[in-house]
């Protein structure tokens, strides 16, 4: 069985003494796992938010009539019947004023303040904008049509780059965890050099020796990465539920099941990585002996 090495007899366990969970390895891995958890969750949340945002505005346009429009209803009606338009939402001047009021205070009530009229509309993907533009300009010649995605593009771009930065950091941290495991494996080999020599002397194979260390490091890594991940998850929950704005920051703080699964699998992936790295490090070190 491939995982046979995981189940050592008490006699095999005695071979390396009882020093499990003593060294810094579980701690280092716990810290890595904690950071990876939080960064990965942030990256996934950003990816989701950016994805949802991008999708929502992909085919959304705004008609802006700079000096307001008396014929807002006509405009909305014309858009509704235009080919390819799936939804229309007129923002009345009253609504615009209320929105502006939040920023400008009572000054927004002043009739001197030019308030633009606004109609948002969604189109089917790939719909031709030209006939729509013609209809709009027939009613309000000063109207301009702008795509939401053009305005949100820089924001989306920076969200995407932060997302990739997060995933890059996850990889870097995993690499650092792997390096820590290599050092731990070498340290363990050094500590137990004599035992290894005696084992080799009585005919133990490299695999028999490796399994002892692999098992030890796998357990250290599993305990460390689970502890780190649980701590990370707690912090994420606090962030998401404690502060209300955090919910908004994190895209509603609800990740789709597939992303949650990724997060749950992270500590186990880290454990498997650590175990594999330890195995390679030990085998490589043993190859240097006779």
């Amino acid at each position, binding site marked *: 069985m491939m995982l046979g090495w995981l189940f050592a007899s008490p*006699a095999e366990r005695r071979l390396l003494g009882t020093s499990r969970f003593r060294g810094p390895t579980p701690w280092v891995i716990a810290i890595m796992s904690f950071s990876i958890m939080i960064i990965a969750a942030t990256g996934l949340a950003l990816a989701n938010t950016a994805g949802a945002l991008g999708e929502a505005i992909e085919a959304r346009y705004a008609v802006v009539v700079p000096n307001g429009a008396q014929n807002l209803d006509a405009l909305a009606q014309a858009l509704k019947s235009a080919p390819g338009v799936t939804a229309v939402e007129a923002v009345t001047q009253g609504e615009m004023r209320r929105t502006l009021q939040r920023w400008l205070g009572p000054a927004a009530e002043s009739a001197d303040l030019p308030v633009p009229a606004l109609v948002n509309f969604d189109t089917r993907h790939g719909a031709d904008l030209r006939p729509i533009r013609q209809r709009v300009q027939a009613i309000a010649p000063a109207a301009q049509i702008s795509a939401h995605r053009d305005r949100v593009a820089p924001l989306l771009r920076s969200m995407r780059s932060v997302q990739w930065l997060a995933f890059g950091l996850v990889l870097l941290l995993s690499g650092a965890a792997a390096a820590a495991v290599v050092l731990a494996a070498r340290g363990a080999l050094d500590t137990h050099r004599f035992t290894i020599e005696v084992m080799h002397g*009585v*005919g133990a194979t490299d695999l028999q020796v490796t399994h002892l260390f692999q098992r030890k490091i796998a357990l250290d890594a599993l305990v460390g990465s689970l502890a780190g991940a649980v701590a990370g998850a707690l912090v994420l929950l606090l962030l998401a539920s404690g502060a209300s704005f955090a919910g908004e920051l994190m895209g509603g703080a609800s990740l789709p099941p597939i992303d949650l699964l990724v997060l749950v699998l992270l500590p186990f992936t880290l454990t498997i990585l650590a175990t594999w790295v330890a195995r390679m490090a030990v085998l490589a070190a043993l190859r240097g002996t006779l």
Partner: protein
Amino acid sequence: MGKGSKLPAIAEFDSVGLRYGTGAEVLRDLDFRLADGGFYFLTGPSGAGKTSLLKLLYLAQRPTRGRIRLFGEELSEAAREELPPFRRRIGVVFQDFRLIRHLSAFDNVALPLRVAGATDEEVEGPVREMLAWVGLADRASARPATLSGGEQQRVAIARAVINRPQLLVADEPTGNVDADMANRLLHLFTALNRLGTTIVVATHDIGLIRATPGAQMIRLENGSVVDPTGLLRNPPPGHR
């Protein structure tokens, strides 16, 4: 090769040389064979290369030149993965015992059996028996540090023979024991030899050699075998 003996060889050395790192050769031009079932003493002054030769024999060291055949197989250039099965056929008593200090006497003796894949039940009987044989039945759970030098040595010997090795190699086994213990050791080795185990003992102890009729002596000086005639001074049992 051959040197007149027709007995099957358990080990054959052919122009073997050994150097550590870039130093001078500590063993050179070794040409001899050890008959299967023989009893050999390896003697020579300190630094002559006895321990080094034994290391070649128990596969802890590769020769830097020449060929070594063990159990009929050419092993001087064998891949390291191929060596463990051969090591399991060799028992070694080290000059410094080499007991694992965090393991009990029982676990130390059981190690070769466990490495060979024996279960706890399979290990129990033979190890108890072996510990009783070397007079340590009541010290089974003692750590090496709590045993006397002679007791540690007996644990080391029990570990070396628990697997019924075909070849038993001992480096200065009487260095730390009194005359009585040395005598019992010799009896042990002779008994094992009668059961068919080839024995190679490095020692300064002339008394030991004298007390073992039928044993042969290989004398090393300065890294070479001297007095090649002495090699077959005492023919192996059952020969001639």
